[in-house]
């Protein structure tokens, strides 16, 4: 069953349309990867799917219910969001940042309970950063911050995660750790929508791919079949041979 579904979606701001005719769906236990150049409308699409930006046309349904019928709190129990690692402004501890993921699981007027702290401990441990819990978020490295934000989304215990270039600021080891974690989440039945600039990462974890350019989905389907060197070359306005040379060997994926 598809957890998130968008039909005929037009995205943009009042007076400035960014894209349209977008059809998307993500099912439980599925990873949909979004590929496309910068400025292609990924961020606007995410903002619309998160309900921060109203759609200009079309509908988004979450678990069969229109997006606009969900309250923020209920929605946060369905969908978690992992932004690109940001610098952060105030010197929150890593634990505090991750605890913010528990907000949707607390009463409106509550502070984190011991259970919330335990859940955060588990999430941090799962990403191998339990030792950072007491550190100041603004003082750790960019890669570590990205892991903390993923841990925050895990602590949220949502049914679906939207990840905005989760591997962009990570070193190689942490990239593998994050991709591995995404595969594990998928096995746990979490629906995942992520964007990336690295097709090989998409090949590694994605069930399906969608190519987004100037606000249009230009192709969508099974990973290997969709992201052909020809299509990628058009997508990124690059040379086909150069693209092909960079892609991993076709038999790499089981």
């Amino acid at each position, binding site marked *: 069953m598809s957890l998130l579904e968008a039909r005929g979606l037009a995205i943009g701001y009042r007076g*400035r349309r960014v894209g349209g005719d977008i059809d998307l769906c993500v099912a439980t236990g599925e990873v949909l990867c979004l590929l496309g150049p910068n400025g292609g409308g990924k961020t606007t699409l995410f903002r619309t799917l*998160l309900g*921060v930006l109203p759609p200009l046309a079309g509908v988004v349904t979450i678990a069969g219910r229109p997006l606009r019928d969900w309250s923020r709190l209920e929605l*946060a129990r369905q969908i978690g*969001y992992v932004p690109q690692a940001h610098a952060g402004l*105030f010197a929150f*501890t890593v634990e*505090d940042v991750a605890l913010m993921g528990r*907000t949707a699981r607390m009463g*409106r007027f509550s502070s984190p309970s011991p259970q919330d702290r335990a859940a955060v401990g588990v999430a941090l441990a799962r990403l191998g950063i339990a030792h950072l819990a007491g550190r100041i978020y603004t003082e750790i490295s960019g890669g570590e911050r990205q892991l903390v934000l993923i841990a925050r989304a895990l602590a949220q215990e949502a049914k679906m995660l939207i990840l905005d270039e989760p591997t962009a600021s990570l070193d190689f080891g942490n990239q593998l750790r994050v991709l591995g974690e995404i595969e594990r989440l998928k096995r746990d039945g979490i629906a995942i929508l992520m964007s990336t600039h690295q097709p090989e990462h998409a090949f590694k974890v994605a069930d399906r791919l969608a190519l987004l350019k100037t606000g249009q989905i230009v192709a969508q389907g099974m990973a290997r079949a969709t992201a052909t060197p020809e299509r990628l070359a058009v997508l990124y306005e690059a040379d086909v041979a150069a693209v092909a040379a960079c892609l991993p060997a076709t038999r790499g994926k089981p």
Partner: protein
Amino acid sequence: MRLFFLPDRFVLMAVFTLTALLAAFAFGPYPLSPGDVLRALRAGPWAENDTAVVVWNLRLPRIAAGFLIGAALSAAGAAYQGMFRNPLVSPDILGVSAGAGLGAALAILMGFSLLWVQGLAFCGGLLAVGTVYFVAGLVRRHDPVLVLVLAGVAVGTLFSAGISLAKVLADPSVQLPSITFWLLGGLNAVTTGDLALAAPLVVAGLLPMLLLRWRVNLLSLSDEEAAALGVNVSRLRATLIVCATLMTAAAVAVAGIVGWVGLVVPHAARLLVGPEFSRLLPAVLLLGGGFVIAADTLARSATAIELPLGILTALVGAPVFLVLLARSGRTT
């Protein structure tokens, strides 16, 4: 509950505030020994002598008002700094002080009574913030936080121009000094009646802040992040703006414009207990109250003639702020 657990830094702050409180009772232009003060406190407020009047009718309301105003301005400052994601924001970022100043200046210009001066100051503060919020709501395409701050600057400037106009129109030997003194701020005229008016407003603003203490943290994230974590960002922000405005306007209506408190105290508190709002809030209440009580004690006992409190908080606040900034070496 985490809000009420007391690690030793809270003990430290409590000691500071308590010391300021005791000093405030002990010092003042009317010569009283600490023994006199203690005796008067023990004898109760009904004793018919000057000592009792000084301690119970003059110093006590003033100290209480100092605490109330310091706590209110600091809490509003802490909330605003978090919500505007900017540690340099003070409670008058949305034009409260300029609006209140204009209200008071107009009331003085018209020769209205004291109650009207306070009432118009309070309403002016609300009006300024209301205008800012309304204008910001008309702008949709930009970051709402940035729009609010810019609208605040614009409306603040507009109301300040109104104050200047009122000063120009004022009788220079009669009304102008009153307006100037009002704008400088001070607690010298505070009465129990003022407290009775301001305290409920401050509490009304503080209560939602206490209840929403955890969620306030999330406003320091970007809007979509906070929204994705389950917060109705615009509603929470509006609630906090109403709360902070209520507290600031009430404080300004009673004490005039007392600057720097709402900027410096949250900074100092964040260095002590971190930015997490459920720990920060009790810390700013304690520190802010203590700071204004201490500054006011200095204001009324350092020189033969009282120094305006607003000048003193700036004199103390600005260097403290610079020291904190230099010593912290990180963004707090």
